[in-house]
């Protein structure tokens, strides 16, 4: 399992000062930092007036990084910023590792507001994250690089930069920073880099990282769970299951490994065994509501993989009803949207999308952002259904709504939904170059990848088509989107005649 964030064991330049001495102490810290710029010993400073706050932050970072205790680490960081409300980097750490989106936003604001109590280096980090939160990438990136250039061997800086770049899909850059850092003994960093190499499909390096991670924390379930997940991404399903089981032997309560086994069987095509494993998980563990819905959805997806659409409809409807009972509007909407995605009858698909949209309008117990993102996904699905029906007018009107939303809400997921939908409309109009520029933005979505490969083929960019085909063929992601696209795509690629085509490119047609 990749943690939401992980923090390496850091060496902290201790700057414990009285408020009245703040400015002079900051000056000393900055001088020390700049004097050691680029040296292997250059360490990122942390500024607080409270020794207790500093101790708590160190404890939190250690717990978070090396002991996989994210919840405890968050609690301790909360204490630290209560002890010193002006501890800017304390707020920043909390913003970065909190699991509560409202807290993430609030703590980022506090970090920004208190940054004048910190050194220039700390201010750069806080402003980099603030710019990124404000979608000002052109301003954020130079700040990140400047901090990195000052502290290229500091574990904390290496973690911050590689993790941020990973989330920006800048895998090559992240791995280059890690390799240059010379850091080889940080479990959290090793875990993250394992996923980074896996994303680059450099599985030899990813497995080497996992071997190290397991060796460093032999009594921890997470290394085995991560190893299993990366093996699954590589398509090595049997080995993946072995590692998930090893994780459960270490800690029988590590429930993500039980569901990891179920997901893996589903990807292997053994839906009966997958459902048995999901049920074991549901019987054995009391799950948080969202986790319950997530894995119930995965279980329901097994019916889609079998082509049993009645079974899928029943299973998804049960989830929608459950979400409705729990007054979780976003989950209810998302479930109806997914039902529309596998529904064979476009008119019925529109009925489901109507229910999904109605749920977003209720908006109960859901963050506004989540509802807005869901609505964007629904509009994208509406475009897709309209195109299936050959109704260009409906497709374009929904695309216009989606474009307006993406323009106004400044949200990455909504923008991706727009790009996916726009690419689809343009592809249907045979405007391949324009379609490509949109589809390339939505590169996590199997539907967009499939169209992108076809569009590359159409313009004669065969290297791009081959690379995209390879990515899609090797996508082992236990989602409904993967279930709807990848197995059929693989089948068509392997035996074009089975889907009515005579050539490989025929498999790309929608």
């Amino acid at each position, binding site marked *: *399992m*990749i943690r939401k964030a992980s923090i390496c064991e850091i060496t902290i330049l201790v700057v414990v000062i009285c408020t009245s001495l703040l400015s002079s102490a900051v000056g000393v810290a900055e001088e020390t930092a700049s004097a050691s710029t680029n040296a292997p010993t250059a360490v990122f400073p942390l500024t607080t007036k409270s020794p207790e706050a500093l101790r708590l932050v160190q404890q939190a970072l250690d717990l978070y990084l090396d002991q996989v205790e994210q919840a405890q680490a968050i609690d301790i960081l909360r204490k630290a910023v209560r002890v010193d409300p002006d501890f800017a980097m304390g707020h920043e750490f909390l913003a970065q590792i909190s699991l509560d989106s409202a807290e993430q936003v609030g703590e980022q604001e506090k970090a920004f507001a208190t940054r004048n109590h910190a050194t220039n280096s700390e201010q750069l980090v806080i402003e980099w994250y603030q710019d990124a939160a404000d*979608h000002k*990438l*052109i301003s954020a*990136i*130079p*700040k990140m*690089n*400047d901090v990195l*250039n000052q502290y290229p061997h500091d574990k904390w800086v290496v973690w911050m930069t590689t993790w941020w*770049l990973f989330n*920006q*899909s*800048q*895998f090559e*850059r992240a791995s280059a920073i890690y390799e240059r850092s010379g850091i080889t003994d940080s479990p959290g960093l090793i875990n993250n880099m394992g*996923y980074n190499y*896996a*994303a*680059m*499909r450099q599985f030899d390096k990813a497995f080497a990282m996992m071997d190290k991670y397991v060796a460093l924390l032999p009594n921890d379930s997470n290394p085995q769970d991560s190893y299993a*997940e990366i093996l*699954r*991404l590589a398509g090595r399903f049997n080995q993946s299951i072995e590692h998930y089981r090893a994780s459960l032997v270490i800690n029988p309560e590590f429930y*993500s490994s039980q*569901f*990891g086994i179920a*997901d893996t069987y589903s990807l292997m095509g053994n839906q009966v065994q997958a459902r048995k494993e999901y049920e074991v998980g549901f019987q054995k563990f009391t799950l948080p509501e969202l*986790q319950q819905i*997530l894995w119930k959805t995965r279980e329901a997806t097994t019916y889609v993989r079998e082509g049993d659409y009645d079974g899928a409809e029943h299973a998804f409807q049960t989830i929608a009803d459950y979400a409705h009972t729990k007054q979780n509007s976003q989950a209810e909407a998302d479930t109806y949207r997914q039902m529309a995605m596998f529904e064979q009858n476009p008119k019925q698909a529109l009925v489901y999308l109507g229910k999904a949209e109605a749920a977003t309008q209720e908006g109960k117990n859901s963050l506004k952002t989540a509802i807005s993102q869901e609505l964007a996904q629904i509009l994208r699905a509406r475009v897709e259904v309209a195109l299936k029906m050959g109704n260009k007018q409906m497709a374009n009107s929904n695309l216009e709504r989606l474009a307006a939303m993406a323009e106004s809400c400044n949200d990455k997921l909504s923008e991706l939904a727009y790009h996916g939908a726009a690419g689809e409309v343009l592809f249907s109009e045979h405007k391949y170059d324009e379609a*490509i*520029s949109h589809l*390339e*933005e939505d*590169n*996590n979505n199997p539907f967009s*990848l499939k169209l*992108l490969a076809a569009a590359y083929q159409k313009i004669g960019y065969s290297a*791009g088509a081959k*690379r*995209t085909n390879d*990515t899609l063929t090797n*996508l*082992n*992601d*236990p*989602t409904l989107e993967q279930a709807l696209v990848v197995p059929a795509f693989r089948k068509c690629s392997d035996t074009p005649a089975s889907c009515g085509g005579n050539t490989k490119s025929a498999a790309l047609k929608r």
Partner: protein
Amino acid sequence: MWAAILPCAVQAKQFAIVADKANSTSNLTAAELVKIFTAHKQNWPDGKTITVVMRDPSSADMQLVLRKLLNMTPEQAHAFVLAHREAIMVADTDDAVLRFVSTSPGAIGVVDLYSLTQDVNVVKIDGKLPVEQGYFLRGN
């Protein structure tokens, strides 16, 4: 359980056109940029000589840039750059491109968006920055 958030390896790249901090040009049209890269435009409005700097034209990134800019095959682009050595400098890394641009008045370079430092200015193309929809130098 986090596999769904793992991004794919296919990622649209974005390239930034950079100039030294003293350069007052903040925007170029795509057509002007093509003229600069084909050595048909060799001076800035203030009269300074333009020097283009980029990474190895046979690298995958630069192939994409040259495909967008010059509409040439990789082989054609490589030959073109070799034939215009006096106007186009080749650097080993993005860092080297940035160092050259930041210290050479009149220089213009192309780097990966994520290499940007505070030592250079980003020049818009057709009024757009790299992150904006419809930006010219992005692709796969």
